[in-house]
């Protein structure tokens, strides 16, 4: 009987990742404290909605991190894309053709930004952190130029109203967009040659190059995907807010990277998965939502969030052979025995 339980794939998954375990414990705890409100359909939808933007960005930024790089421009791309879409609609009206043009321009800006970053990073040995830290500022400079530092309101655009306000089965549209993005990233990373190349280049660029992997192209495509996802998130954000501003999505890159790291994706590249990165985002989303429902005062929230994240990551490291924490725990257990 115990074997049947142990061999159950769900039980296996839970036991294999302590992040899922922590998530489960948190869900049970918040459900108990809020007398079931936390686990209601409506609230779970709220959590999904609250992580949808970050989730879309992760689906792009994760590629860069898996390659051992980093893309801090997801927020800049989002802001620029949102601003371009809003400005084009403001200038050209809410007609179908113009809206299509606006979206093409917005997403195109993200792709172009990704292309430039990919070209530079694949050809020159510049630290990705440094480059994208600087270019994110440049992108925000462009956003200020596009918006002239004013709020750009979008009124009466059917598509943006639809994305920002409509629901299917009680679930907001941005959640579906996130799910499609996750599916896209999952398939690319796990079921294509390109996905295997990403892990290979992230693990060891030199040996991948020697074994014939087109490393430059792999890096280039990764940053294009990242740029596109950032821009898509920006369009969704502008639809949610029915506006674009010059400071939109600022500092979102920190939340995106935090979620990716909490999800156990190695910053050195080559290991981790999109599902775990998204799990990281959910973990943070669940903590924030749960504490909101409990009415925890704001001053304690950041502290509690930090502690729970450290516990989740530490538990994970303690169960992974090879990590210092694992070795420490092993020695500790031996001594105790």
């Amino acid at each position, binding site marked *: 009987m115990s074997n049947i339980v142990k061999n159950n794939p769900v039980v296996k998954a839970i036991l294999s990742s302590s992040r899922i375990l922590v998530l489960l414990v948190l869900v049970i705890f918040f459900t108990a404290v809020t007398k079931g409100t936390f686990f209601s359909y409506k609230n779970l939808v709220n959590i999904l909605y609250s992580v949808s933007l970050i989730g879309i960005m992760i689906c792009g930024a994760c590629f860069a991190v898996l390659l051992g790089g980093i893309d801090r421009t997801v927020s800049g791309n989002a802001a620029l894309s949102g601003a371009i879409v809003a400005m084009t609609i403001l200038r050209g009206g809410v007609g179908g053709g113009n809206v299509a043009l606006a979206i093409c321009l917005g997403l195109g800006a993200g792709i172009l930004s990704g292309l430039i970053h990919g070209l530079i990073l694949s050809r020159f040995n510049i630290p990705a952190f440094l480059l994208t830290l600087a270019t994110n500022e440049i992108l925000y400079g462009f956003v200020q130029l596009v918006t002239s530092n004013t709020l750009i309101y979008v009124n009466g655009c059917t598509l943006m109203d639809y994305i920002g306000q409509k629901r299917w089965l009680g679930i907001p549209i941005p959640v579906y967009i996130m799910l499609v993005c996750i599916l896209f990233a999952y398939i690319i990373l796990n079921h294509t040659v390109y996905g295997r190349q990403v892990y290979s280049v992230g693990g060891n660029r030199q040996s991948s190059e020697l074994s014939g992997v087109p490393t430059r192209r792999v890096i280039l495509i990764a940053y294009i995907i990242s740029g596109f996802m950032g821009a898509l998130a920006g369009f969704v*954000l502008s639809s949610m807010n029915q506006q674009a501003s010059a400071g939109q999505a600022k500092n979102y890159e920190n939340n995106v990277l935090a979620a990716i790291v909490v999800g156990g994706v190695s910053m050195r590249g080559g290991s981790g998965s999109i599902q775990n990165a998204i799990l990281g985002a959910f973990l943070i989303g669940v903590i924030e939502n749960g504490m909101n429902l409990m009415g925890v005062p704001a001053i304690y929230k950041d502290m509690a969030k930090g502690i729970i994240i450290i516990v989740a990551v530490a538990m994970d490291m303690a169960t992974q052979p090879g990590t210092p924490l694992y070795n420490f725990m092993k020695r500790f257990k031996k001594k105790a025995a």
Partner: protein
Amino acid sequence: MKKLAAILVSLLLVVSLAACGSANAANANNAPAEEKTEEKTETTPVAAGEGLGFKDRTKNPYEDPMKFAWIPTRASEANATAWGNGIREELSYWSNTELNVFDPEGDAEQQAKIVSDLVAQGYDGIFLQTINPQTLAASVEEAENAGIPVVCINMGADTPHAALVSMTDFEAGQVIADRIAEELGGEGNVVVIQAKVGAVRGINLEDGFQAQLKNYPGIKILDEQPADWNMEKAQTVMNDFLTAYPDQIDAVFAHNDQMAEGAGMAVQAAGKTGEIYIWGANGETKALEYIEQGIITGTVYTNCKDQGKTAARIMMLYLNSNIDTSTFTKTPVTKMPPITVDASNVSSITPDMRW
């Protein structure tokens, strides 16, 4: 063993850092109290001969080349743009003037550095929305001592300077409390969507709101959470409020319009538009449109463009006088009239007044 020691040392460091952080937060919380006392005493006129000095200015501000700077807390915010536009519009009547905008991006030390740099560059006047009154005190004093009047908008520095042109915040909080109490008939539950923790304007609005609510014992604050002035965060916070307190919330007070709009959208998505009163503050264009559409209830409107123009006029007045503003012992404050706007009078805010 060494590793263990290293871990312990780093933990100690983290704890001490956290302690420093909370000390800073405490300082920030003290700020509004000082601000308010300053505002209350400001009605007593400055007695002639008591600290007020005079000096001859060599430049004619309406003819000689004049260089001005506008340093908001964050150039990308809607009201910063509106103030900047107001200043620019007023100054543009005089072709000898030039206005440059600087963006410290919410960083008080950076803002202080910009002010010091501008003093060194010999600017003729500085328009400033301080991020933190204490941090900016030294550099504002430096500017005043160098004969450069500093006219602050909305947030002054903790040192006497030429003038402060301010929106109301404590009073706006009071007005909103009164209006919510009136709408609820003195009985009901309110949730508050707060500004970024430590933001002085948010603290003052909240203080005014809380102080006035003491007159209405039937009104209870169910919960308060910050959404950092941010629309999408406010939407998430409001969603969580609606889940945590189903059918209990009667009214929402958001510390700015962006957050009120976010709350309005969450309430709309929950199908409760019109059932919950939602109040914001500032009076930006979109909030006025949302009031017209019935998505939010009301806001306390300030004509930010006019506020910028007022600041510019005060600046020109000083520069064309022989008043030495560095000898002031307290900052003269002028307040912009707050207009409480709801569906009944929103049309009185004409397009040219919207920002």
